């Protein structure tokens, strides 16, 4: 957690975007380590693979298309922002005061449907009579794929939509540019070079 705070401060201070992307990946990896400490191995796995891996690569791809140094705009109205952040942070901390302690077995979230999932999903040999409702030792998987199948279906649609959106916006761009000989929104020199590349 301390390392995560240090990394976050470093990200806010740096202007070299390449280093910022690398530090963001590090932040995700530290977050994954924090999840492991809290015994949420599946979440940690996802965080390490998606946060530290794929999103870093995607950011690097974006950097390769744009520039790697942040444009510094002069700060304006620093005091107002500081007051706003302080008030919001204070409200958030005040909100956490009501929450049950971490790992509290009497917390309401552990008594709605979690009891049912944990006790019925998979019966350990010797303690029950069958294989339970799903027969899967990993409760996370049984909740994700079976009890909450509709949620997961929605997530798959979200990912599908993301890929479809990227294809719709970026995938067709180079085909659309070719018939116009690269004259749209470009300087004449690069447009000519682009047209040559398109012809060759």
């Amino acid at each position, binding site marked *: 957690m301390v390392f995560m705070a240090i990394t976050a401060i470093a990200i806010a201070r740096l202007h070299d975007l390449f280093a910022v992307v690398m530090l963001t990946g590090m932040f995700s990896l530290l977050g994954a380590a924090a999840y492991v400490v809290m015994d949420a191995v599946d979440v*940690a*796995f996802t965080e390490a693979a998606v946060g530290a891996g*794929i999103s870093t690569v995607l950011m690097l791809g974006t950097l390769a298309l744009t520039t790697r140094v942040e444009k510094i705009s002069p700060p304006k109205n620093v005091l107002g922002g500081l007051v706003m952040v302080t008030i919001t942070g204070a409200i958030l901390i005040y909100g956490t005061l009501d929450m049950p302690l971490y790992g509290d077995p009497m917390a309401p979230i552990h008594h709605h449907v979690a009891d049912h999932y944990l006790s019925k999903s998979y019966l350990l040999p010797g303690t029950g009579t069958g294989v339970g409702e*799903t027969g*899967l030792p990993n409760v996370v998987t049984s909740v994700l794929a079976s009890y909450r199948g509709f949620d997961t279906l929605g*997530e798959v649609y979200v*990912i599908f939509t993301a*890929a479809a959106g*990227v294809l719709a916006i970026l995938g067709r761009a180079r085909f659309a540019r070719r018939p116009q000989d690269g004259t749209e929104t470009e300087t004449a020199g690069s447009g000519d070079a682009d047209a040559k590349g398109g012809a060759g």
Partner: protein
Amino acid sequence: MRQKIILRVISKFLIPYILLFALYVQWHGDFGPGGGFQAGVIFAAGFILYAIIFGVATVRDVVPAAVTRFLLVVGVLLYSGVGVASMLLGGNYLNYNVLAATPAGGQHVGILLVEAGVGITVAASMITIFCTFAGRRPEEQPDGVEEA
């Protein structure tokens, strides 16, 4: 990065194990940590590593754009199709109990198929997004067109 021989050799050595590990995570997700989402991302990471070292065009030779777009749809349809199949067999949408002789066996089949659908869609969309991003050249460079 085609000239860096260490990167080429080491990545060629590593990529099969990355793909193998992704498959392990995919099919072992019922018993240990993992599942379709993580496996899809790891599987795509193998291809992305290949693309970074050998170029996006080389990866597009292995998995053409048409293939990833097709798989993108296959995954979603597999997931939805399991739901429709369970409806046709007399249950509710996505109720796996009716897919096999016993409810637990049906759950096994359903979860396995659903996770496979998730993995296929996630891997295909990650490869698609990366190749679409990386396949674009900055506007200044002359080689604006690349075979996709």
